[in-house]
């Protein structure tokens, strides 16, 4: 267990190093942030002064070394455009995105797994075919279009739900959250559903194919021969077997929900990290971009670790102690 986690941490440090180097080179290649940040009327001396102030007059490898030196102390640099520590900037926006992603994931799991089970147990019934047809729409309709249509229907025509923003927030352990009051919930509902749609379809399809496969296994027939009620066969025997791929996908997709909630956040003007990233890329605000990517990498590493730990709970054949170095 300890060996397992230590190895994981070492692997993630390497992943972080590689990612930071790639982003550094990438942003360097796009252009000079000074050209965008500085007043167009500024003279040559002023430009040189600003460049030196941001450390951009140094060669790239020196800049990278400086970045690493500060990074080990937890300082990922200051935003060029907002003159705030990049980490602080991201963490201020993070709760909004995490809340949105969690809520979307919850929608996807609570709806997707039962619908997939239903469609998998009776694949030829009309309702199963309806579910599967619906999941094709969920897969193929572009998120931004669905988001716009939702705003059209629920905000413009029906006037039930607000179209933008986060609404009233409540403090929970010092973190502002929306889901604890009604105004916040009405704001949260549409973007969460919009973000969930793709994952929902994915989970339906995954659960369905897993269920169909499991239902043909001898252990299901044996469970029926034991006279178990259908509830228990599906809810325990089948579900526990198909949970392994589902947990993997939920883990991976949760990371991508947080990382790529950008489109939904933009449409519903949700004040999250995705919006911040788009703004930062527009002004080539390198410290924010790098910090964002590194935080997302950390997130993926943590999620994968949790998924691996969950495996060992779900599948007795996976034992972490056996995964020796």
């Amino acid at each position, binding site marked *: 267990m300890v060996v397992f986690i230590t190895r994981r941490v070492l692997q993630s440090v390497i992943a972080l190093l590689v990612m930071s180097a790639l982003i550094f080179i990438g942003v360097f290649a796009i252009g000079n942030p000074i050209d965008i940040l500085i007043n167009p009327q500024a003279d040559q001396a002023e430009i040189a002064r600003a460049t030196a102030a941001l450390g951009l007059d140094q060669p790239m490898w020196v800049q990278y070394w400086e970045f690493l030196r500060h990074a080990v102390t937890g300082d990922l640099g200051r935003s060029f455009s907002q003159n705030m520590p990049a980490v602080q900037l991201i963490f201020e926006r993070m709760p909004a995105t995490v809340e949105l992603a969690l809520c979307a994931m919850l929608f996807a799991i609570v709806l997707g797994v039962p619908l997939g089970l239903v469609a998998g147990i009776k694949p030829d019934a009309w309702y199963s075919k309806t579910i599967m047809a619906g999941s094709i729409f969920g897969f193929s309709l572009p998120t931004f279009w669905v988001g716009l249509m939702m705003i059209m229907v629920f905000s413009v025509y029906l006037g039930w739900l607000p179209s933008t923003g986060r609404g009233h927030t409540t403090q929970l352990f010092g973190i502002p959250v929306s889901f604890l009051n009604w105004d916040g919930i009405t704001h949260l509902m549409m973007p969460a559903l919009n973000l969930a749609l793709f994952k929902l379809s994915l989970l339906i399809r995954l659960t369905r194919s897993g269920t169909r496969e499991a239902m043909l296994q*001898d252990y299901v027939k044996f469970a029926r*021969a034991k006279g178990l009620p259908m509830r228990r066969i599906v809810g325990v*025997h089948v579900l*526990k077997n198909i949970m392994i791929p589902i947990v993997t996908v939920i883990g991976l997709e949760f990371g991508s929900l947080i990382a790529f909630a950008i489109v939904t956040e933009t449409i519903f003007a949700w004040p999250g990290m995705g919006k911040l990233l788009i703004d930062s890329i527009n002004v080539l605000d390198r410290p924010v971009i790098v910090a964002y990517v590194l935080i997302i990498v950390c997130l993926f590493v943590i999620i994968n670790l949790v998924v691996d730990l969950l495996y060992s709970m779900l599948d*007795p*054949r996976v034992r972490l102690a056996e995964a020796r170095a």
Partner: protein
Amino acid sequence: MTVLSVENLKTHFFTKAGVVKAVDDVSFSVDAGKVLGLVGESGSGKTVTGFSIMGLVDPPGRIVSGRVLLEGHNLPDHSDDAMRKLRGDRIAMIFQDPMMTLNPVLRIDTQMMETVLAHRAVSRDSARELARNALGRVGIPSPDERLKAYPHQLSGGMRQRVASAIALLNNPRVIIADEPTTALDVTIQAQIIYEVQKLARETGTAMVWITHDLSVIAGLADDVCVMYAGRIVESGPTADLLDHPLHPYTAGLIASIPSRNQRGKPLHQIPGMTPSLLRLKPGCAFRDRCPHADAVCEQAPEITCPAPARTLRCFHPMTALEEIT
């Protein structure tokens, strides 16, 4: 006393390619404490007969006609729920492949206790106690430890014992054993057969032992039914039937058992192969492979009683002097 009696059972599968008559007019009965051997090649309808008794035939298959009487009650008349209550309680089944019949992600105790709890209103503790005793009865050492194990931690023989213990848990009136020893090596096979036979005698449980292995039947069954292409072609007391086979198919099966007396001679084989049940011609299904066949065999033979306790479905039975070539 007759516990289970099957009368003119027909189970057909309505596939897109046509109707498959997997079980076609099968009748037999088993007394308490007796073992009935159901012998035949792959695809002769043995397993479907077992599933028909259990009420576990899945679409497109269904029982077309006939009766399955368990202590006088006709099972196909029962509702799904009434049938579920009988399965695993009054009538149990052991499957062929012990590697596949136990659910890989559930502990042995879970899989045993749920069988008790599905049928009886007892506490979890007494269910565990019953499970422990059942493991002891099938000769599993240190049952307390085995209860906490997962299936992958047990060997094939152990797993089949666990499956047998599950079948025995609620003291059923009938156990249907579908080639339970085929996947095991010979020594384990002998142990399990010995234990099951002993238990059947002690508890008065009637057993239907499905197998393709005549040597298993010879040491185990009181009576034998030989199945071919969905029909019982010959039946009778084991010793009598094996010593004096009347149907050419039975004679061919007996002759194909390797024996030391025939050292150096090529092993007898029945020419041809089992017919596809989809394109079964009218008349005797064995006639294409039968040395006795003539024009009369294009009519379907009726069941006759050539000797006390014997039945036969053949126009040209073996004579006492005939040598099988």
